[in-house]
């Protein structure tokens, strides 16, 4: 028996609370336990994604088109960022410059592993679907 439950029953026994109040308190304890259980279950289920998938299938207008199925482990992205730390400064500047030219304002040297983890976690909600007559493109994480 939990500590809270014992406390409520002893309060009822001492006559400090009525039977109805005791019932209410016990219900409240049960409710909070269920909510906590659901939260932890959700976190366990959601977890961080492991792969980035790119799937291209031919559309109705081009049934014999190319099929592409790419699965990139997100661990490889993590390793890539770590690899960035051993890239010489000159090469770093060139990479950053090239990224900026493409409109990506990320300084790879200042990308911390914590930022990367939160970025990867948020990728689990990402899904890009492009449907055209020739092909269908899906980009998602799993």
């Amino acid at each position, binding site marked *: 028996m939990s500590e809270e439950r014992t406390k409520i029953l002893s309060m009822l026994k001492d006559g400090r609370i009525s039977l109805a109040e005791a019932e209410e308190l016990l219900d409240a304890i049960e409710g909070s336990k269920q909510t906590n259980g659901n939260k932890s279950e959700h976190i366990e289920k959601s977890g961080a994604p492991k792969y980035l998938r790119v799937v291209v299938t031919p559309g109705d207008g081009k049934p014999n088109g190319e099929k592409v199925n790419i699965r990139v482990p997100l661990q490889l992205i993590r390793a890539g960022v*770590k690899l960035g730390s051993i890239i010489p400064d000159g090469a770093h500047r060139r990479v950053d410059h090239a990224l900026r030219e493409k409109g990506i304002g990320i300084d790879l040297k200042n990308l911390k592993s914590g930022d990367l983890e939160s970025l990867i976690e948020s990728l689990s909600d990402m899904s890009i679907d492009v449907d055209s007559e020739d092909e269908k493109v899906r980009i998602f994480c799993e």
Partner: protein
Amino acid sequence: MIVPPMLVRIRVIESSGKRFRLWLPIVIFWPLAVVIAILFAPVAVIAAIVSVGSHSVKNALRKIWMFVIVICSLRGLLIHVEDNNDEVLINVL
């Protein structure tokens, strides 16, 4: 935990009829790599002691470790592109 890849599958089929299939069980190389690493470890330690203060040895060891991490991260990689006549498959398991 870092788990290295066990198998690499490569399949290339060209429209001209050329076919290339490869199942490379790289798992057989890992014991050899471990033996080499064990043999190399004392040399690395001596080199690190001799060149205290020098970043070159430290950087070299760091690069080797990064290489191992990148190789291990490849596990699960799948690249499969095909159309009616050609096919390319690269799968790291």
